[in-house]
């Protein structure tokens, strides 16, 4: 279905040989490619037959790559889908397109409340930026000082690390009568906390008995179910975090 865009933005098309033309983006979806059935047909062998398209979601225009061979770039970044903003520079093959949307910018700054009808929920969501941990996050490391465990050191990369004999435990207890779940160490904001489980095993941090949960500091010694371990915070490069 095609939608009419009220204050129609434009595309400035710059051909590699130097010609320029301007196109109205009054109707979406607006298709771009080498074949003549596109709204914008680019005679460029580096452009796929159906290369990309511009679609409208509510008040926002998005450029989508249609799995083209050579890719679609916005401001020299390869994109799959990207919200278009005034003055964005789009590259397909050897053609360059400039997106202009002055109308909405001026009207938005003049009268923002008109655009943002207060009670109606709307979305200005952007494409996926990837579900990743922030790279600068510190990583907790546990060194086993004594007791029966599978490894001598564990990196706490999981959100919640279980200490016990259970299959999915991160810090494994290998003794004969080891409890399935003795304790848990979990991320909380920038740091980590150790908490009790239903097993009700006693947890000592630096020799003191804790109830419920307890925030861990660099160098803390934790004892539970016959295991004694030292908790250390490392920066992402693996260096020890210096106490400040």
């Amino acid at each position, binding site marked *: 279905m095609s939608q009419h865009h009220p204050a129609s933005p434009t595309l400035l098309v710059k051909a590699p040989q130097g010609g320029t033309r301007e196109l109205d983006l009054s109707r979406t979806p607006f298709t771009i490619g080498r074949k003549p059935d596109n709204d914008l047909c680019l005679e460029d062998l580096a452009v796929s037959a159906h290369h990309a398209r511009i679609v409208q979601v509510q008040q926002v225009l998005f450029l989508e790559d249609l799995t083209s061979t050579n890719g679609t770039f916005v401001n020299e970044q390869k994109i799959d889908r990207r919200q278009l903003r005034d003055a964005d520079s789009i590259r397909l093959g050897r053609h360059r397109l400039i997106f202009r949307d002055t109308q909405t910018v001026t009207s938005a700054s003049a009268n923002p*409340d008109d655009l943002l009808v207060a009670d109606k929920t*709307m*979305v*200005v969501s952007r494409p996926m930026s*990837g579900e990743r941990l922030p790279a600068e996050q510190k990583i907790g490391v546990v060194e086993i000082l004594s007791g029966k465990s599978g490894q001598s050191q564990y990196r706490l990369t999981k959100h919640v690390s279980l200490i016990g004999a259970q299959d999915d435990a991160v810090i494994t207890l290998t003794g004969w009568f080891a409890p399935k779940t003795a304790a848990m160490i979990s991320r909380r904001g920038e740091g980590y906390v150790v908490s009790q489980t*239903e097993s009700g095993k006693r947890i000592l941090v630096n020799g003191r008995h804790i109830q419920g949960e307890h925030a861990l500091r660099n160098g803390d010694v934790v004892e539970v179910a016959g295991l004694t371990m030292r908790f250390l915070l490392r920066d992402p490069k693996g260096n020890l975090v210096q106490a400040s």
Partner: protein
Amino acid sequence: MHSLHVTHGATSDVGLTRAHNEDRFHADPSAGLFVVCDGMGGHRAGEVASSRVIDIIPRHLAEAGADPSLPLIGAARPEFSSATNRLASAVRLANHTVHQEAARHAAYAGMGTTVVAAWLVGPILSIAHVGDSRLYLIRGNTLQPLTADHSLVQEQVQSGLLTAYDATRAPHKHVLTRAVGVHPLVEVELGELPVLSGDIVLLCSDGLTAGLSADTILRVVQESSDPQTVSDRLIALSNAAGGTDNTTVIVAMLRHRKPGMWHRMCAQLFAAPTTASS
């Protein structure tokens, strides 16, 4: 299967000014699963979006329970448990379904919904959310938000452009930066929390937090040990504060299922003489 005893209360209300309730919820204490969705879209598309998500999430989790080899939708994130990854998979599947349906029917174009889901597996609560429906943890005397809204104002608060107080009054507080069903792919925010006996988990749509402060919510939760009384009271207060939006609340109270075997044995030993003499 979770190890705690869960009691819950859930209430959803259209409010005083809206014609339809576009909020939907799912509450299954035996599965430990609680979900709140706040739909949006023209005509009744918002209800369609939120209803689809509420159907799909429990179904996907149940199917995965029956067949653990069921493929995950989207990439597994190694830092989270398999349960949390499965919950994310369910939200991504729901996103796909809603987006497809919106593309097929002109009347549903642009529909979407928020989602906040909490799933208790063993002693760990898996959390997934998209949009501005929230999850709070009440532990001891504090109310902690476990989700950060995917909204323009929240992003501005996080980047320091807006204070938390101004955010509650901002004219653009209804502008979301993520929603389920609007795009072919959705970024699902995940969390995990080891729960303790006595914890209370509260899920709500933005209608609740529009009218009630965190202090009020905390006070109401602490006033009663019956979760249904708490959720009903919260809705009543939300409507009293204006009721300008649909409001949905789920309150789940987590307790140890029963005392440990040692305690039961002790209790029986000491209880035995009294029963014999009576």
